[in-house]
């Protein structure tokens, strides 16, 4: 129990957020939205880690959250750089234009 709320609700909320993010990555066509969906997935994990960290009275989970934030920032920095490169080449960032590589 966390503040009178069962851990299962935290779990459920994180799972729902995570699934929304995952579906977004697979279904959306705009690259920026895809990045936002990945961020959503990572933040669902952060929420879950913080909840479990409080549940176990253990700081390790919260420290892990900082690692995730740092890595997510690095990932997005690289991702946006790649996107701006793509935009310079084809003047578009929809994933539809990225279909040159196929069987």
């Amino acid at each position, binding site marked *: 129990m966390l503040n009178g709320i069962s851990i299962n609700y935290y779990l459920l909320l994180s799972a729902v957020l995570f699934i929304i993010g995952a579906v977004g990555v697979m279904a959306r066509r705009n690259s920026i939205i895809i990045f936002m969906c990945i961020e959503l997935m990572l933040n669902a994990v952060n929420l879950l880690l913080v909840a479990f960290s409080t549940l176990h009275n253990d700081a390790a989970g919260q420290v*892990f959250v900082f690692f995730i934030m740092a890595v997510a920032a690095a990932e997005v920095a690289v991702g946006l750089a790649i996107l701006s490169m793509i935009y310079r080449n084809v003047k578009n960032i929809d994933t539809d234009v*990225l279909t040159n590589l196929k*069987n």
Partner: protein
Amino acid sequence: MKGLLIISGLGILAMLAEIFKFKKIIFPLVLLGVLGAYVANFMEWNTPLSISSFDNMIAFDKVALAFSGVILATIFFWFIMANDYFENNSNMIDHITLVLFAVVGALMLTAFKNMTTLFLGIEIMSIPLYVLAASKKKDINSNEAGFKYLIMGSFASAFLLFGIALIYGATGSFDLMQIRAFISAHSAGTMPLFFYAGVVMLLIAMLFKVSAAPFHFWAPDVYQGSPTVITALMSTVVKTAAFAAILRLFLVGFGGVTEVWTMILVSVIALSLVIANFSAAAQSNVKRMLAYSSISHAAFMLMVVLANLRSNATLGALLYYSLAYSIGSIAAFGVLYNVTKKGDESFEAFNGLAKRNPLIAACMTVAMLSLAGIPITAGFFAKYFVLITMIGTAYKWLIILAILTSAIGVYYYFKVIIAMYFKPPVETEEVPVELSQKMVIILTTIITLALGVVPGFVAEMFSF
């Protein structure tokens, strides 16, 4: 441990090269450093650090040292093979630094003891590779490869993290040994359901990373679009590190809950073998063919995880397989890089290579035979050792499936050999190959043959 520190220091040194203007000597310096790291790694073999470093985060035991050795040897050959890719590049320093940091991540993955180091290792290895995959700025194919790799990589990382969070929730720890202790303290059915979900999500994330079917769809695109030398890096160093990580994670960490992941692993192996080999046979682009072939090799390496019940023979089998595959791939990609310099990556680019460069063609033949698993090359014994370990398991039908699908493998590897020896060349002059690259190609070919002649040497490293 010393190897990891030396490579990290080397990466920082390479970054300073631009500022303090010793760009000219950085390449030999990096080669020396990698060699030094290899030697330091080798020296640790008989006296591995008994204390785990950094609060039990990382521990270089013999298994980690052996896989680090494979990675460092591969990256040494890779650097020589890729030297003119660096020399013709205005951002040479950035590229060297990124590669070195990717290797740091790979070394961390061989030795992690904690979920934190697993996650950081994967990310330190992957993020430089996203940049490197997209490093041909003007080439939309390279951009696409980098973008797909990034999206798929972070998607897999999110699964990995969710898995880690669930396991942390159940066990209250990120430490691999404490998770193991938690599993052995609980009998089946008494652990919370989300613990099992966490294990499955971790497995899926790791299968994404090694591109095993049905999580492989990104790999052919990424392999094809990336610069050839970077593809070589992905299919050697990254594969070895990821498999070392899977081995540790699932045999040390989750060895007590095999019933959760065995069936998934079996179906993934069977699917990978079938899909990879049939798709590879249908390719006209050699890089794409090698991408699918790497998926089928991944299936073989996963078999070791399936068979391994902490016996040393099976550890040796995986070590031998990753060494044979890495060295053979370096030779193959070295030739491919030189042959496809003009942009044609189809099988036709190899037409008549035996008349133009007989020596290089011979080396490519050995590399292809090794990847196909034809006797007296390392590849044959690699497959042999893996299949031997499978005999003791309940999944003997996988052995038959592996042998049958390898027969298809022979078809597409031989397409290259046939093109080289029996098709008339389009041009008659020699393909220019730099001396240093020629040396690497020949040396890796010799090692491939030598490993095939005395296979016991590596495979018995763990028989202590």
